[in-house]
């Protein structure tokens, strides 16, 4: 692919990922986003470096001023500084994409995308940001590398020098259109580098010291509008709630008490005590549990219970189950507890600098998580008292505050309902018997229905009990509470969630809006509040958890949960626990090693690593040397080497006889010079040397016999020179010609060298 095309595509990928990181937060206006996406796509077809006219520039200048004005107006009207600024940023992006005239424009484009990613960190805290962030890391690596190369090409270098004319710049277009600068391997290699960058970023993220707790932006997540958890509960107000799959919270339960099923866990939230004309209300003076502070724990106890009064609270968490809840922003400050709350961990907080945990009327738990959501750790009792225990529970006096709140305000109860309650309770002295009787009554002839009944002005509970005999959980719970109160049993309606889906990928419970439920809590004088659920099971079918789509949703949800827990809500507490965890693992490893002669094992491993390193080093060095030898193609090998040695020995023999080869003199020239000193030798020497060259540099490598023949010929030649040289040595007049010759080099200065 052409360099220019790759650079443009990398830049556009960067723009797209930055746009995605920003847009998926859901805080920007849909029409604005659509316009921006279309404009970005359209700008792809605008050629680079196109010279535009004055009208074009004026239009864009006017448009920029107009866009700035609109963004200021948006800020004034809606008071959203970040959103207004980002809108203007998007306009500048489009402007720059349509006006890519120089390489500097690309740089400005990258700065804009970076600002968009920074803005995205405020506007989008969802898992989509993670996806786009990874893509952005890859694309920024590509784009910046290619930007650098392009700038070097265009602005600085690539000057062609020539001897006979002036230096000139190489045509940039030719290089930009080259397909040889970057290719698939280049992109793959740089992707690996960018992934390494990403992991390094993750390392910095995890270990960069955090100071204080996170204060997340209110723009980050939009709170869900959850019904049924406000100050009043209107019957028939939200019959279709069960279809809503939106996640409300994720609960990590490390272990469950025996006999407790996930589907039967009630996550209690709001408590209602006063009924009036189809609506439940919360009394501000409803009794609260006694609060006990034990270190980082805030315990709750109904102190007016005889058992509780005797209880030693030194070990607050006896029989408690730990649960970690990651709650989405729900628009309510209620927090939900699986079963009856025992204590809340005040230090295990995340998602807000000041969660402000508090216990309000009726024993509801609340915190400042309505807008931001967050994480909290609770200890609750998931075990419901057994029937035997409930049956045997003493029927002591009902405390005044309980009776005042949960028995007396029955003025608005329809007389027919009161009469029915009294009739059901008649003859039954035990609380459990009365409860069983009401449950038995509601279990006969009543059915679950999400179709809201038309009461024709009648009280909805009276209509449910005597005419309609069908309704959803709120009707069953309300009817049971009213019937029990008519029978002098304190009871109240509780709303929250029932059960949830188990996410096998993340190993936690997912509770959705569709799991919203209402049930009943009954006061047992010696045991406190006990949960009863009158809604028929047929109405409590769980949301689908099998099938490809469901599994995919689970997988995505587990990713979301991890993102939320380990990235968005990561703070100094998480960091400290991470480091503690690492320390613990290291200590365990050390203790394991100690158990198996760890010190020796450690030294053996270290020694093996060092040895392996040395082997790799030596091996690489050897390979490099081998490669270097291989590169020297001209160096003789095998028979050619033997042949070369034959010539070398011949030259050494001549040297011993006083014939030294001058620097730069070829062997043939030496043979010619021999002839001038010893006439008649040259033709024979030339013939032998000619054959030598044929064998040495011929197409085929010499055979063993040819090398041996050549060796004997050279030896014979040398033997022929020897006696003649001695003759010359005996004749001083002749030898003077040799010694006086410039070609005769003294042996001490004779150069060493091969053929």
């Amino acid at each position, binding site marked *: 692919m052409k360099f220019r095309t790759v650079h443009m595509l990398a830049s556009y990928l960067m723009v797209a990922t930055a746009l995605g990181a920003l847009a998926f937060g859901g805080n920007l206006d849909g029409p604005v986003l659509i316009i921006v996406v279309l404009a970005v796509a359209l700008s792809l077809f605008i050629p680079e470096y196109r010279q535009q006219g004055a009208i074009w520039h004026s239009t864009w200048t006017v448009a920029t001023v107009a866009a700035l004005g609109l963004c200021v107006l948006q800020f004034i009207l809606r008071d959203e500084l970040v959103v207004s600024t980002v809108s203007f940023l998007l306009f500048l992006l489009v402007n720059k994409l349509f006006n890519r005239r120089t390489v500097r424009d690309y740089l400005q484009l990258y700065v804009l995308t*970076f600002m968009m*990613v*920074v803005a*995205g*960190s*405020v506007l989008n*805290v969802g898992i989509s*940001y993670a996806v786009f*962030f990874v893509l952005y*890391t890859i694309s*920024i*690596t590509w784009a*910046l*590398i290619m930007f*650098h*190369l392009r*700038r*070097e*090409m265009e602005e*600085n*270098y*690539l000057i062609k*020098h*020539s*001897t*006979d004319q002036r*230096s000139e710049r190489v045509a940039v277009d030719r*290089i930009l259109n080259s397909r*040889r*600068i970057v290719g698939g391997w*280049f992109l793959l*290699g*740089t992707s690996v*580098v*960018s992934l*390494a*960058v*990403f*992991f*390094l*970023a*993750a*390392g*910095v*993220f995890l270990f*960069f010291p*955090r*100071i*204080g*707790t*996170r*204060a*997340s*932006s209110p723009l980050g997540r939009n709170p869900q509008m959850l019904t049924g958890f406000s100050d009043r509960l209107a019957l028939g107000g939200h019959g279709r709630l069960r279809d809503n799959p939106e996640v409300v919270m994720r609960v990590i339960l490390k272990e469950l008490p025996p006999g407790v099923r996930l589907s039967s866990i009630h996550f209690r939230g709001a408590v209602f005590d006063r009924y009036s004309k189809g609506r439940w209300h919360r009394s501000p003076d409803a009794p609260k549990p006694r609060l006990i502070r034990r270190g980082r724990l805030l315990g709750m106890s109904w102190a007016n219970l005889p058992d509780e009064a005797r209880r030693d609270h030194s070990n607050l968490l006896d029989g408690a189950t730990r649960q970690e809840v990651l709650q989405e922003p729900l628009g309510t400050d209620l927090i939900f507890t699986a079963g009856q709350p025992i204590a809340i961990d005040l230090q295990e907080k995340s998602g807000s*600098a000041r969660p402000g945990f508090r216990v309000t009327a009726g024993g509801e738990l609340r915190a400042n998580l309505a807008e931001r959501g967050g994480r909290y750790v609770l200890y609750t009792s998931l075990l419901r008292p057994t029937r035997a225990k409930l049956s045997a529970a003493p029927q002591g006096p009902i405390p005044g505050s309980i009776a005042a709140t949960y028995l007396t305000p029955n003025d608005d109860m329809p007389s027919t309902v009161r009469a029915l309650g009294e009739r059901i309770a008649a003859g039954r002295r035990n609380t459990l018997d009365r409860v069983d009787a009401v449950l038995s009554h509601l279990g006969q002839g009543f059915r679950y229905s999400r179709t809201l009944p038309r009461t024709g002005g009648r009280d909805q509970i009276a209509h449910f009990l005597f005419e309609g005999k069908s309704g959803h959980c709120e009707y069953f719970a309300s009817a049971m509470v009213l019937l029990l109160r008519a029978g002098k049993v304190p009871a109240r309606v509780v709303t929250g969630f029932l059960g949830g889906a188990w996410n096998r990928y993340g190993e936690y419970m997912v509770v959705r809006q569709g799991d919203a439920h209402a049930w009943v809590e009954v006061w047992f004088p010696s045991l406190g509040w006990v949960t009863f659920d009158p809604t028929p099971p047929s109405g409590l079918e769980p949301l689908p958890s099998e099938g490809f789509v469901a599994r995919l949703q689970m997988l995505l949800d587990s990713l979301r949960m991890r993102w939320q827990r380990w*990235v*968005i*809500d*990561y*703070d100094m507490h998480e960091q400290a626990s991470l480091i503690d965890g690492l320390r613990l693992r290291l200590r365990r490893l050390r203790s394991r090693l100690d158990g198996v002669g760890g010190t020796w094992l450690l030294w053996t491993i270290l020694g093996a690593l060092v040895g392996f390193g040395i082997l790799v080093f030596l091996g690489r060095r050897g390979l490099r040397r081998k490669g270097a030898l291989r590169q020297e193609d001209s160096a003789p090998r095998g028979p050619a080497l033997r042949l070369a040695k034959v010539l070398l020995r011949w030259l050494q023999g001549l040297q011993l006889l006083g014939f030294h080869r001058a620097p730069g003199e070829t062997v043939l020239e030496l043979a010619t010079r021999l002839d001038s000193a010893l006439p008649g030798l040259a033709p024979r020497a030339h013939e032998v040397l000619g054959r030598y060259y044929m064998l040495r540099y011929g197409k085929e490598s010499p055979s063993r016999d040819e090398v041996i023949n050549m060796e004997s010929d050279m030896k014979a030649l040398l033997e022929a020179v020897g006696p003649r040289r001695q003759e010359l040595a005996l004749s001083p007049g002749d030898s003077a010609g040799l010694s006086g010759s410039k070609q005769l080099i003294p042996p001490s200065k004779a150069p060493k060298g091969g053929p």
Partner: protein
Amino acid sequence: MKARELLRITREGWFFIAICLAIGLAAIRSGNNLLFLILGMMLGLMVASGILSELSLRGLSFHRVPPPAIHASRPFLMGISVTNLKRRIASFSIEVEDIHEDRVLDKRCYFLKIPPGRTQSTAYRHAFPRRGEQVFLGFKISTKFPFAILRKSRIVALQTTVEVMPAVYPLPLTELPAPSSTGERQVPLRGRSGDLWGLRDYQAGDDLRDVHWKASAHRGRLILRERQAEAAQEVMILLCHRLVSSDEMSLLRASEQIERGITMAASLACGLLARGHSVGIRTMTESLPTDRGPAHATRILKLLSRLSVTDQDLPPPAASSALLTLRVTPGGTVEIDGPQGALLPLSLPTASKMDDLSSRTWA
């Protein structure tokens, strides 16, 4: 090769660091974890920049390819070739600067990409103002790859000595006296147009048109065909290079004058050889017999490039038996040696003119 490393943050790099700091402060201040992630990415990019630039600079081999002849004050192209010895990784965006006598020359050679196992060559234009030996000590190699936030440099030692020959300027030699009728000898000397004289190895400065390609192919090196000259006039150039001065200023001036004389002698010799004369030279310390051809011009220029200015009381170069003897004095005046001592109307161009001429190719 000995290597020394340098690391410098570029202007863009300082901006990058400033943005890093700003993001870091914002992250700490707001507690927004995604800003920590962005900060981590930026720090990661810096680390990646260091690793990639190191990969780019490693495994490179450098060679300097000087031109066959370098003349003072005349631009020449110094060839630089870079071989990527790595087996798989290409080197990108490599800048090479030559180091001349402990000073980095302000001439950068840029290599956009050097694929693995490949060699790429380029050249830079440079000019030395004076003749003599010049020593190149090594290279400064740098890269801003991949993000231009760091400039990583390395000094690679590679010594090369080049001989800068005197500047040569065209002279109006038509003013030279015509060869005397008695002196014109039809001697069998090497020339360009006569019969074959012999074969010899090619030397720097020889005309490529005289290469005997068949013999070159046979012997595996360039072989030159030498021809017999039709006729030749011998000219001997006598050059005085003795420095006589009393104070420092005049010493400098006298030295300049001698340099001018050497330039004149070089120009004269080359001009005469180009016209087909057989030219020899005698200085106060060295001499070359008369000969012809471009290779002889190289010999004369090399002699002149090595010639040192002397302040010893040496005898002036003796007159020769050549038919024409020209004496070049310090300052560049040329006179015919003899009883009359006629001054030739030859002069070197002025300094500004020299610059213009230095950009032309001498033929």
